[in-house]
């Protein structure tokens, strides 16, 4: 993401990439585990949940950043929650209008985006202290990072647990689906596997720096 002629200083590629890679909400910060584990039974579910969260995150960070000089410190959390809840309600209606099947698959987890700690965390730690554009870029990065995380989990679980990806059968009839992967315990197994991979990558990198 390049923004060459921006008057706002301090927006770098890193503002965006922070959430995608270095501070990835799922793989590094391990935040928002409730939707992460519960809805990622398929790639579509994971991706949709990720996009819904991305929308709420970006819109609420924009609004929080726009009114950051207006809001007295004492009522800031209450204000942020009202803003976040508003955008979650919006997403709720939009998903119902787009696809009822998806709405039923995601269930209560759409409403539960309100209490996703990534969103309140970003609003409090970043958006309330930064100009709108920077806040949006940062929120976009975090949201994309979260969506990638959910998609990675959802795709892995769908491939292993159902032998499909986006509903398309990948293997022949001889493939016996590993059903436990689409059940709740499978969520933990797959998340553990991904965390292991990221920890391995990190320790490799640190080892290289020292050497």
């Amino acid at each position, binding site marked *: 993401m390049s923004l060459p002629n921006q008057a706002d200083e301090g927006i770098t590629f890193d503002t965006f990439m922070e959430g995608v890679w270095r501070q990835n909400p799922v793989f590094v910060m391990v935040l928002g585990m409730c939707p992460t584990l519960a809805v990622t039974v398929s790639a579509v579910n994971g991706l949709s949940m990720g996009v819904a969260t991305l929308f709420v995150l970006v819109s609420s960070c924009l609004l929080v950043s726009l009114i950051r000089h207006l809001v007295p410190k004492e009522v800031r959390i209450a204000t942020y929650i009202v803003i976040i809840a508003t955008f979650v309600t919006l997403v709720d209606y939009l998903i119902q209008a787009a696809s*009822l099947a998806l709405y039923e698959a995601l269930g209560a987890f759409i409403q539960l985006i309100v209490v996703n700690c990534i969103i309140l965390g970003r609003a409090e730690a970043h958006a309330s202290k930064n100009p709108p554009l920077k806040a949006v870029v940062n929120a976009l990065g975090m949201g994309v990072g979260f969506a990638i995380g959910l998609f990675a989990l959802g795709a892995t679980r769908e491939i292993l647990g159902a032998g499909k990806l986006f509903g398309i059968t990948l293997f022949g009839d001889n493939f016996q689906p590993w059903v436990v992967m689409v059940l709740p315990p499978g969520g933990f197994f797959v998340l553990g596997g991904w965390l292991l991979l990221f920890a391995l990558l990190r320790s490799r990198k640190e080892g290289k720096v020292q050497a």
Partner: protein
Amino acid sequence: MSEPIQPQTTPGSKMIATMALVASICGVLIVGAFEGTQDAIAENKRIMLERAVFKVLPGAASVREYAATSAGIQPLAAGASLPEGGVKFYAAYDQAGVLKGVAAEAAGKGYADVVRVLYGYDAERQVIIGIGVVFMRETPGIGDKIITDQAFLKNFEALDVRVNAEMTALVNAVKVVKHGTKTSPWQIDAIAGATVTSKAVGRGINDSAQKLMPLLVPHIAELKS
């Protein structure tokens, strides 16, 4: 924080004003989204219902909602609430406007959660001619066989739900039997290994048919017009 904390006092009026402003902005946004999506959501719900009804009653082209009560059957206007003690059902008609059958919802407690199915009813023969799952959270690979298991679905090609002469109950209650022991047309052959889910479907259909059929059958002629 290294600097000493200074007691700051924001006047209460400013806090209230801020919250009121934020709440008004949010209120406008929510109302806007509601107004903007309401039609699409209603349309989605209608399509979903039609698709479910057409699946259990092949050949149907239009659906009308009705409520059956002890006083008879009345059409149910869109969005209207069900009368006390009433049972909701859907009458399906083909292109020419001839009654194809009746669909109603049944619900039974399954392994993980309630299993809700829609069943199609043939008024001429007084049998259930098909089921479709509306909602379930059963174990993938085990309980969800109720959607895919052809032998199980064969139970619902002509499931006997005749009403007795007094119009009080079914002649034979719908019953789920152990896999491979079905002998009568009102029995459902359970899926081996998914007995709990099979029983949920059977019990749900029995509960619903016991309630609906005695109310519906005496008035079935009214639907044909």
